[in-house]
């Protein structure tokens, strides 16, 4: 069975001939991809001489299984959402992470103490904390714009089309928070069938005025095109559009859902050694702090925090734009990876069925 699969895919797929040492990073593209290119890839090549290539996907978790099953893994390092990394790790699709390769903090703190709690798992190591929040178009609400998650679901006070990520994750949590569930109880409520119904009932309110996005680059585009007046988004994408492109977007942090983003090595990666070197390099104190120079995602290392300074324009202070900034955490939810590793399929099927009805 497996041999047949290998045989037929080998025939239909393009055989990758690895000539020299190189690292192929599968990531999310857009401004996030750019931040990785600047902070990880370029300095890595400069320092080690190892060639690096970046490949984009809407969600890098999706192509990994096909690659591993077909025994034709064409990427060496993959950038994943935390819950996806746990799921893929449990299914044996990622290489176990050798924790000894992680560099100690620049201030001498041992690596395992330096990373934020839970950031290092069996197969992956976190680089950043990112968040899904929503942003609105200032020109549509010049005064008294929306300020809470409940406002996102309030069509009467804030009319206009909205956009959300096409999927269950984060949307259901946001719906419950908008419905008045405190952040601390969201997953307890969502674990019950009534809780799921309650979340979907909330989504029902805005269903007819909703555009669904899939790639992280879409929300700023939809807002800029005037297709929607507000959209949930990865916070860094909104930051990039608002600060570096001067788009009139305002971020609303109330009810944000934040999560780690991690690096992992897919099972059977062709350049294991170079991939490990890359992970050691990219998760170092300075690199994580550097990445924050290009996009507003918080570094997953304690020692990187103090090193985060100004945006690449040289004048914008990054601190207040981070999901982990004190002011942004007043009503915030840490995404529960185990909940989603468990129920991802079930809730997404329910979500798909809900979309159809």
């Amino acid at each position, binding site marked *: 069975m497996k041999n047949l699969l290998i045989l*037929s895919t080998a025939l239909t797929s393009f055989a990758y001939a690895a000539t020299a040492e190189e690292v192929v990073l599968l990531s999310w593209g857009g401004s996030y991809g750019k931040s990785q290119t600047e902070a990880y890839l370029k300095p890595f090549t400069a320092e080690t001489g190892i060639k690096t290539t970046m490949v984009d996907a809407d969600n890098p978790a999706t192509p990994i299984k096909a690659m591993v099953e077909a025994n034709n893994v064409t990427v060496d390092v993959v950038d994943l959402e935390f819950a996806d990394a746990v799921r893929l790790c*449990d*299914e044996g699709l990622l290489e*176990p992470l050798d924790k000894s390769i992680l560099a100690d903090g620049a201030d001498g703190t041992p690596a395992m103490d330096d990373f934020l709690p839970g950031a290092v798992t069996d197969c992956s190591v976190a680089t950043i904390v990112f968040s899904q929040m929503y942003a609105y178009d200032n020109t549509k609400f010049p005064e008294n714009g929306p300020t809470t998650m409940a406002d996102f679901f309030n069509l009467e006070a804030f009319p206009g089309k909205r956009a959300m990520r096409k999927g269950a994750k984060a949307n259901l949590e946001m719906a419950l928070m908008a419905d008045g569930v405190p952040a601390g109880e969201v997953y307890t409520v969502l674990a019950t069938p009534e809780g799921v*119904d309650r979340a979907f009932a909330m989504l029902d309110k805005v269903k007819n005025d909703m555009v*669904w996005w899939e790639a992280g680059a879409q929300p700023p585009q939809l807002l800029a095109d005037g297709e929607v007046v507000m959209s949930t988004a990865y916070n860094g994408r909104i930051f990039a559009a608002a600060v570096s492109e001067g788009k009139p977007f305002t971020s609303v942090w109330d009810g944000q859902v934040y999560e780690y983003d991690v690096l992992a090595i897919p099972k059977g990666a062709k350049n294991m050694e170079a991939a490990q070197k890359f992970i050691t390099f990219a998760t170092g104190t300075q690199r994580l702090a550097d990445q924050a120079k290009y996009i507003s995602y918080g570094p997953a290392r304690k020692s990187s925090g103090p090193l985060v300074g100004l945006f690449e324009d040289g004048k914008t202070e990054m601190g207040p734009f981070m999901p982990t900034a004190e002011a942004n955490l007043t009503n915030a939810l840490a995404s529960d990876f185990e909940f989603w590793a*468990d129920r991802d*399929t079930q809730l997404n099927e329910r979500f798909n069925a*809900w*979309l159809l009805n």
Partner: protein
Amino acid sequence: MSNSDTAPEILRTVDGQPLKEALTRASRSARIRAFLLVLPLLVFVLLTFVVPIGQMLSRSVVDEKFSENMLQLGAWFAENDSLIPDEAAYAALVADLKVASAQRSAGNVGTRINYELPGTRSMFTSAARRADEMAPPFKEAMLAQDPKWARPDLWAAMRSASAAATLNFYQAALDRQIGADGTFEAAPENVQIYVKLFIRTFVLSVVITGLCLLLGFPIAHLLATLPLRYASLLMILVLLPFWTSLLVRTTSWMVLLQGQGVINDLLVWAGIVGDDGRLEMMYNQTGTIIAMTHILLPFMILPLYSVMKTIPPSYARAARSLGATSWTTFRRIYLPQTVSGIGAGGILCFILAVGYYITPALVGGADGTLISNQIAFHMQKSLNWSLAAALAAMLLASVLVLYWAYDRMVGIDNMKLG
């Protein structure tokens, strides 16, 4: 030469061999040569078509993730057909989880059961993490870990997963799930999706095929009857989109049809609709129908054209001269002669439409997506390939049934593709 009472002399070739043998030998070598000529194609079709489809079909009925990792529990299921697990069953479960934990396969085991009973995956991964510390009695140990381990539907799901071969994925593809008592029942209304999608896929495909016929028939007729100079110009207009990339054509429709798109802008500019009353022609069924009709149109026009080209115009003239009205001429003389083209174009468009993926994914939004998008969801996102295979197999089977019905009603020999 010979008369009736002598045996016929054996005919021989010039070099004395019996003619029959020589002929057989010659034709055999010709056959071998012919076979060698088609061999590359045969191997190609086998490897890129028959084998993958076979793999897909076998995936839809075989899933080894649970059975190959949970051997002791499998043995217990084989020996006991009781629905209530005893201490031995729990002991087997713990022993298997220990092995699974060592081989890092607990996630796979949990994933398999999670297909049947959502929300159970982490029970397996967390129990496997603690399996080493567990001591008899195992039943108490497991229930202390999570009381849900006593659920009868969980044991029913594990029993059915303990055999690699299963029809459960077809049950799931028909919106059925394991109920609390361990037998299959219809899934709750709000999660039913596949049957509805199959129906929508077939209805939309019929609509799109019908639209292609309505639009394509006059064009094909024009192509077949215009003077050659104009006909070839028209032909290029038909073929040009055909040669353009599918993605380009689909995204062009997006540019034209979206809320802030060209058509809406024109309508607003002309004052036909207000700025707040822009038509929604994209990210819904309308978008899917428009874009797919355009994309599939050449597949209707070309077979029709090839058939119409062979219809002598004198037939229609004869009918008219014998007093038939133009409608009667069309209905009784012209149309029957084009049936083989309509059949070929129709079946081609329909089969392509049923399996269409990229266009509905891009322009379909929520209510314009088809079953193929759901198959892609399970291939790419949920990674439940067995369910994707079961859905694909059902799609394949229904297309084959339609093909068979077409053959019975119209006859496949009458089909002309050009």
